[in-house]
């Protein structure tokens, strides 16, 4: 057996280029197969981390998924705001422990601006009951002060004391600027891996203040209210985009939800963020299945390539195999030789794929975590992955039996008698 292995290895070394490329193809296919699944899990964990501390999201009546996406993940926009008085009434509900008001819609160089109050720094929780922490500075106290998310500060290179202006609206590059009322950076939050990192936080009063001399989405011509004078106006917000709610008793969530949904003065919606998230995943599940199907097909292509390479090599190895037969190797030795080669290449491909994937996670992990909040943890191989890898290995070995069987059937004389 060891002699056979030696022959197989030496013969493979002789054809190292083609076999090496085949190993690479299988490695890439395996990395894709596992990578798709790992990023799916990472995305789910990361999204769940962002909502885990909130019991209910309060907003205008819309789809719960929509409300969750725009209030927590700042994806898409609200069709309606809610009245401040409704918010206050809900916040006074006996079962509500805390609430964080959110006024969204403005942006700064593509990053969303969140109008909120001190409750945000006190009550917001993510992951496993983790609180927001300030890496530098303090929460906003004055009107034109802002606290930056970690990623905003990092990518735009802002430091404490910098002055920035907000844009009206979000998305498009040529937005109207609130350039008469600049904000001072007073705090920078520690990284959280949630959408908080990508947000700028200002007070609700500041949101009202920068829109004082605005009407219909643009400054009113001829009317300028200087930053120094805005304090004379009533800056209490009239509307909100949404609010995050924490309860005294988590089990009371359905009761509070029912009370909010039946609130008589304004159509409101209370969404359970974890439930809305699961609803979103159910929609996305089809796409995930397609991705998984595609990566399985890529594995099949890789293994087909393996079979093709070994089959093609049979022609070029006719002499080699015939010589082996003539020195006493039986057909089963030839069979074993070729099956060994196919299995070896498959296993090498799987191994290389795994190493490559871990290497990629190690290299690109910090970047993904910063940009997308995805944590691709360096993890051991899970049981589900092991099952998939075993399936790939079994398929690879079974497939390489095809060329082996062909060689097995070839007559002894084949390859020794020159064909004319």
């Amino acid at each position, binding site marked *: 057996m060891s002699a056979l292995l030696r022959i197989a290895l030496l013969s493979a070394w002789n054809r190292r280029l083609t076999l090496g490329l085949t190993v690479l193809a299988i490695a890439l296919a395996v990395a894709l197969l596992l990578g798709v699944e790992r990023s799916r899990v990472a995305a789910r964990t990361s999204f*769940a981390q962002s909502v*885990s501390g909130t*019991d209910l999201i309060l907003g205008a*009546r819309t789809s719960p998924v929509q409300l969750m996406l725009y209030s927590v993940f700042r994806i898409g926009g609200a069709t309606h705001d809610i009245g401040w008085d409704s918010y206050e009434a809900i916040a006074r509900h006996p079962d509500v422990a805390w609430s964080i008001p959110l006024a969204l819609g403005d942006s700064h160089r593509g990053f969303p601006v969140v109008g909120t109050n001190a409750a945000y720094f006190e009550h917001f929780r993510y992951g496993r009951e983790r609180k927001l922490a300030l890496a530098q500075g303090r929460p906003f106290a004055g009107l034109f002060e802002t606290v930056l998310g970690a990623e905003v500060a990092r990518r735009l290179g802002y430091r404490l004391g910098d002055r920035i202006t907000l844009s009206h609206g979000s998305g498009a590059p040529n937005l109207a600027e609130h350039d008469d009322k600049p904000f001072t950076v007073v705090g920078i939050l520690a990284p959280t891996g949630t959408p908080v990192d990508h947000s700028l936080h200002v007070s609700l009063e500041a949101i009202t203040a920068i829109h004082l001399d605005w009407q219909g989405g643009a400054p009113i011509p001829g009317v300028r209210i200087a930053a120094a004078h805005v304090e004379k106006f009533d800056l209490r917000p009239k509307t909100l985009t949404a609010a995050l709610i924490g309860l005294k*008793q*988590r*089990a*009371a*969530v*359905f009761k509070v939800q029912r009370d909010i*949904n*039946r609130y*008589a003065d304004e*159509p409101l919606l209370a969404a*359970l*963020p*974890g*439930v*809305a*998230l*699961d*609803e979103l995943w*159910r929609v996305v599940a089809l796409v995930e299945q397609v991705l998984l199907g595609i990566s399985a097909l890529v594995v099949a292509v890789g293994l087909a390539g393996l079979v093709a390479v070994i089959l093609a090599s049979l022609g070029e190895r006719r002499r080699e195999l015939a010589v082996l037969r003539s020195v006493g190797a039986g057909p089963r030795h030839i069979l074993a030789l070729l099956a060994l080669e196919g299995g070896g290449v498959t296993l090498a491909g799987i191994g290389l794929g795994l190493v490559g994937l871990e290497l990629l996670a190690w290299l690109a992990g910090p970047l993904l975590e910063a940009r997308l909040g995805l944590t691709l943890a360096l993890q051991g191989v899970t049981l589900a992955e092991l099952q998939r890898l075993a399936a790939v290995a079994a398929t690879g070995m079974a497939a390489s039996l095809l060329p082996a069987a062909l060689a097995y059937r070839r007559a002894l004389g084949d390859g020794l008698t020159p064909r004319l």
Partner: protein
Amino acid sequence: MRMNPAFAFCLAAALALAASAAQAHGRARKTGHAAHVHGQARLMLAVAGNAVQIGLETPLDNLLGFEHAPRTAKEKQAVDALRARLDTPQTLFELDPAARCQVESVRIAGLPHARTAHDHADLEADFSFTCAQPPRALTLQLFSAFPRLQRLDVEQVTPAGQALHRLGPGQSRLEW
């Protein structure tokens, strides 16, 4: 003009009905119209420590096969049987036996009675249980008890967090 007394009575009754319907509709306008899809129901499961609360919202059709006031003796019987079934929630919701759970209270709203006059009617029921130990699993007997029920959206809030499960007949176990 002299009005036939019977006609006058009918007219008055019709006006009163219309007024009450308008009032009911006005209320619905303010609080909105909940979705009403036969075959589907919503189950809310909240577990905190030793307390379990279960809320069920379903079109009556899923439980009875009709949503109007019971007219025949058979329909009356069906309503009575449903009430009896809902009053013993431990037969519908089997919490894991190790937790030793007891029914604490049952609140049922929306069972049809002689004066119900809706096209569509929903049943809302709240059940609470107290257990000796925190339960870890729940087996539902809703699909076997109510064959017209085809889909159940379970929203659960447990120590493991919030989650949504969509169950069909044959899926009856929830774990957390």
